């Protein structure tokens, strides 16, 4: 590999990495929290009844009764029986048909509905505290919350592609990838940041490649539909038909003739027999109440959660019709596996912690890269005055420190906003972004040198006090959760406390470093001078 090529790739790595690094950092932080979305949900809904357990057949009957009443003429019902971490309660989802003679097309959101049901009463769980929970927080990593969905997908695709180019060029520019794995020179300013960036990136490289490439695959229909379209001669109709047949989406036509829906429980029992006793994980009812109704009983297990296969029954007679096709070919199986790895739904507790750590390492990789950019330019006084330097420096503080503070604010808002408040869930998010905005302003008003440690102290307090806040505002504080052995709730408080302590340690280090730098600056200069003199004299002697 020649020097010019490596140089140009270093340049590309620097700029693809830097240009959207704050968005990347945001995606890494909120995406990583997605690996504990259900646990965050639990903490943010302290009044919610404990997770429920029931045989799928029993839960399905409760769900069907509710849906018959609330969404009788729907296009589809999806029923997820309770079980496991991701589904603590029975969940139903329905999609109503688009009215044919509507003057203006209705908002697609108004045609969908979703509820969590109480198995004992058959009614939706009472929502005491309206909250976005862990779900809204983790969806931010691809929806960016305030943006229109289509725009967000396109933008996220661009950012992810830059991340991918950044990863590949990052690998290419390494002369000695193996040696740098073992290299860490602490306390050496710019060099230390680079070593840290290398160490974090190299140790977690497989995860970073997986998470980035699978992230791109999520965006494949948004960004790369052209390849399928071109291959089928730009025939949109044909492309759609071929692709939907491939994933087994055979459209069911409405007969427009009423017929009562078959009892669902026996179908589940039949499917369970076909799976040698393994229970169903989901049921889809197409056109309930119509003569052409169909019931698909599905089971997903393992890493890939799509195309897992299932059985389709006649929705009126209950006769077995066909096995739903699984994944049609190897590349689609690879895509499904990558998507499954990205979501990590299959992960048990140990693997889930590993996911969490890998995500944090990715977060730190982005952060150290961004700080290295400024550390490298800090030494030359001229660049330090430049607008670009100050812009990056301020954004670094306001995002690397500010975003965690903002997320703490999201949790604080969940406990402090009045429970009956209108648009309460929206205001939790507004609180988060308002606080982030303030954190971005802070280094502009104050100098960045002070802002780093001040925000770190603030983050320390904001997280460490979460268990206290929880104790003052709810009944599910550590005193309860530790005694009751409720580890999900206890872990949230304990992890918040640990995060607070970690930020306090960082703050201490930064304050000390800043104080030390001010004191030792003349000495350093002298050292450099004398060492350069030494080499000069050495050369003269030689």
């Amino acid at each position, binding site marked *: 590999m020649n020097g*010019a090529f490596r*140089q140009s790739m270093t*340049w590309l790595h620097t700029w693809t990495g830097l240009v959207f690094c704050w968005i990347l950092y945001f995606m890494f932080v909120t995406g990583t929290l997605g690996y504990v979305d259900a646990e965050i949900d639990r903490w943010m809904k302290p009044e919610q009844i404990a997770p429920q357990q029931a045989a799928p057949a029993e839960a399905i009957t409760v769900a069907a009764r509710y849906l018959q009443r609330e969404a009788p003429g729907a296009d589809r019902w999806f029923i997820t029986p309770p079980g496991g971490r991701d589904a603590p309660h029975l969940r139903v989802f329905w999609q109503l048909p688009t009215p044919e003679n509507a003057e203006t097309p209705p908002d697609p959101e108004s045609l969908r509905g979703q509820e969590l049901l109480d198995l004992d009463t058959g009614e939706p769980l009472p929502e005491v505290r309206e909250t976005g929970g862990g779900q809204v927080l983790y969806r931010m990593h691809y929806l960016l919350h305030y943006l229109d969905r289509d725009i967000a997908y396109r933008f996220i695709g661009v950012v992810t592609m830059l991340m991918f180019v950044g990863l590949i060029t990052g690998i290419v520019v390494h002369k000695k990838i193996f040696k740098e794995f073992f290299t860490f020179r602490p306390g050496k300013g710019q060099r230390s940041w680079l070593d840290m960036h290398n160490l974090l990136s190299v140790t977690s490289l497989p995860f970073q490649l997986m998470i980035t490439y699978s992230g791109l695959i999520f965006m494949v229909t948004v960004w*790369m539909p052209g390849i399928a379209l071109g*291959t089928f001669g730009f025939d949109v109709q044909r492309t759609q038909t071929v692709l939907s047949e491939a994933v087994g989406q055979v459209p069911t036509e409405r007969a427009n003739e009423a017929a009562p829906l078959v009892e669902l429980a026996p179908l589940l029992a039949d499917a369970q027999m076909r799976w040698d006793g393994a229970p169903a994980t989901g049921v889809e009812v197409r056109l309930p109440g119509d003569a052409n109704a169909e019931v698909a009983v599905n089971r997903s297990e393992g890493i890939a959660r799509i195309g897992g296969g299932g059985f389709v029954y006649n929705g009126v007679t209950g006769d077995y019709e066909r096995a739903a096709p699984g994944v049609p070919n190897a*590349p689609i199986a690879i895509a499904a596996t990558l998507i499954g790895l990205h979501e990590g739904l299959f992960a048990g507790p140990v693997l889930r912690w590993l996911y969490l750590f890998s995500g944090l390492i990715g977060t730190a990789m982005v952060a150290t890269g961004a700080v290295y950019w400024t550390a490298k330019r800090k030494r030359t006084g001229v660049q330090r005055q430049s607008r670009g330097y100050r812009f990056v420096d301020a954004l670094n503080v306001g995002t690397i420190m500010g975003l965690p503070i903002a997320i703490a604010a999201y949790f604080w808002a969940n406990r402090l906003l009045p429970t009956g408040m209108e648009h309460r869930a929206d205001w939790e998010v507004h609180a988060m972004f308002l606080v982030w905005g303030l954190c971005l302003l802070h280094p502009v008003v104050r100098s960045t040198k002070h802002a780093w440690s001040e925000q770190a102290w603030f983050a320390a307090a904001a997280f460490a006090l979460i268990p206290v806040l929880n104790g003052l505002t709810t009944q599910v504080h550590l005193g309860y959760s530790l005694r009751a052995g409720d580890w999900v709730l206890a872990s949230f408080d304990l992890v918040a406390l640990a995060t607070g302590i970690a930020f306090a340690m960082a703050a201490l280090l930064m304050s000390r470093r800043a104080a030390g730098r001010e004191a030792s600056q003349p000495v350093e200069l002298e050292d450099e001078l004398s060492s350069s003199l030494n080499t000069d004299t050495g050369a003269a002697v030689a």
Partner: protein
Amino acid sequence: MASTVTRNERGRISGWHITSRVVAALIPGFVLTNTSGVFLALAMPGDVLHSVATATLLSFVIYCVIVMWVFSVERLKTVWLGMTGAIVATSGGAWLLYTLQSSP
């Protein structure tokens, strides 16, 4: 940070050189990703769905390589000529393959 790709013929850092390469990577680079993807899908033997899925999955790798190429070639002229040539060649090849395959 000194890299030849950001400099003009006299060795000065040039905003124009950077902009030109960014545009080349974004627009023709993306077009070339698609045309080469279609070409690849049509050139692969076997089931068409298999080929389309494979080419689509690979498209992000293809795009990444194109971007790296755009930023590693020394002369701007080579970037634009190479890009135009590659788009013409892959789309022409794809058209030829499509016509051959759809004629009975």
